[in-house]
């Protein structure tokens, strides 16, 4: 787990850190949509420039972003290679059976690569600068309109915040159980597939029973503290829309319009 950086929060006090979570969440979503409109060098350059500004403003060193990409690098390479080898059209440099490399496929491969990078980077900015609980609050605010359709937004938000709160606890417990079973002679992650699946039982059973115990204790404790339903609650943490959010949205919208202008039709 030690090198697992995706989805973790880095405390800080930058412009990006202090934005309200709901607008960050929506901006992230908006940015990803805009990425899919980009289709030439100019549009990708514009978006990359915007991303670089965002990364610089988040105050997080670039090394952590690179670490965030590392686990996904094989997926990226695989997709880019597929794109390069199998797309047709343009001037062909090399071909062998069904495989071919042309100038167009190279460019497309490059675009896919940049697209991946942009999506991963912007979501890493979000998770590195926003606490999990703030993200849960942001989701609740963003989904509020769905209440009109009787979608249980508050319940979902409660479940989300409890789930996020228990991720590290369950990770710790898993680590302890893993170590306890290791000292009892279990070899995790070695041997045949069958053996490996069998080795998971001494880990999974205690983990599940632990989770059930947590759920039971937590629900009792919640009831004892006067929790009746997830609607009709007041909020302790209130995230207000700030000037920062307006300015950021202004910049993103401008870039979005610019991309629409620059793209090939």
């Amino acid at each position: 787990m030690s090198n697992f950086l995706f989805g973790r929060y880095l405390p800080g006090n930058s412009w990006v850190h202090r934005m309200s979570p709901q607008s960050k969440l929506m901006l992230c979503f908006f940015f990803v949509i805009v990425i899919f409109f980009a289709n030439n060098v100019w549009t990708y350059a514009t978006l990359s420039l915007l991303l670089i500004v965002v990364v610089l403003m988040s105050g997080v060193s670039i090394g952590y972003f690179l670490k965030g990409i590392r686990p996904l690098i094989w997926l990226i390479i695989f997709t880019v290679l597929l794109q390069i080898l199998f797309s047709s059209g343009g001037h062909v440099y090399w071909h062998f059976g069904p495989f071919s490399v042309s100038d167009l496929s190279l460019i497309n491969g490059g675009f896919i690569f940049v697209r991946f990078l942009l999506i991963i980077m912007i979501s890493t900015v979000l998770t590195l600068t926003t606490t999990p609980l703030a993200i849960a609050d942001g989701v609740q605010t963003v989904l509020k309109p769905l209440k009109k359709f009787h979608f249980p937004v508050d319940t979902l938000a409660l479940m989300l915040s409890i789930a996020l709160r228990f991720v590290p606890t369950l990770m710790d417990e898993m680590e302890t159980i893993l170590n306890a079973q290791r000292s009892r002679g279990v070899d995790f992650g070695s041997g045949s597939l069958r053996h490996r699946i069998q080795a998971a039982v001494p880990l999974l059973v205690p983990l599940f029973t632990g989770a059930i115990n947590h759920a039971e204790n937590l629900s009792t404790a919640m009831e004892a503290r006067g929790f009746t339903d997830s609607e009709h609650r007041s909020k302790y943490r209130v995230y207000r829309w700030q000037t920062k959010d307006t300015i950021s949205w202004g910049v993103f919208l401008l870039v979005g319009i610019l991309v629409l202008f620059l793209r090939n039709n």
Partner: protein
Amino acid sequence: MDQTISFKQVTHTYQANTPFSQDALDQVSLTIPAHSFTAIIGHTGSGKSTLVQHINALLKPTSGEIEVYGRTIIPTTTNKNLKELRKHVGMVFQFPEKQLFEESVIKDIMFGPKNYGASEADAEKDAEDAMQLVGLDESLRDKSPFDLSGGQMRRVAIAGVLAMKPEILILDEPTAGLDPRGHKEIMDLAQELHDHRGLTIILVTHQMDDVVDYASDVIVMDRGKIVKHGKPSDIFADPKWVYQMHLDLPSSAEFATRLVKAGIHLKQTPLTIEKLADEIAELIKGEAHT
């Protein structure tokens, strides 16, 4: 084989090379002699649990080396071939009842021996012996471990470790959350294993009374370093220092310091209730008591 445990300049950093990196052990060197009963104490987060997890190579040092049971563990040691070491170093984690998973008590206790290659019959015999050792009634044998009480579950878990017949036993706060009776029974079991079966016992605890009642050596840790290593009487000789380390005195020593404040001076600081009673008896009877 030699059960001496020695740490040479061991440093451990959690999540090294990330923004979350945290030094847990800092240049620790120590020797724990064979057949000793060593207590490790220290403020929460001082690195006690990290230290003991190095002994059976669940954690590997970031730098330095550990020698235990004829094995040398260095930063590049891999998980291969560590089984032999782990068989001899039994480890009881905090709240060990969390590790139970089998459908019956006996099967859960047999799990360890079977992993280390014992036959079904041998494992069953070892498990029965272990059940007896921890005081589990024969009638619980085929029950599901999840139907037992908290105290009984803990015993099943400890039996599961003892069934492997370890020669070094590490107990990480084995009595946390137990009632006074369960507490005493577990501690007496540790003493029995040490005194009559010759096990090396390493106990991580916050209970200073247990330290003076049972341990022969004490290691005091503070912020990843070993700040003192000696007999219980050396460690608790200076109450001021003990408080500085955010530790407590054993209750008898605590009581003695209050007597001193009230103007009653004892000959020496008593570490156990018995010694305290002796000293007070002597004071009252004066020279008549010998």
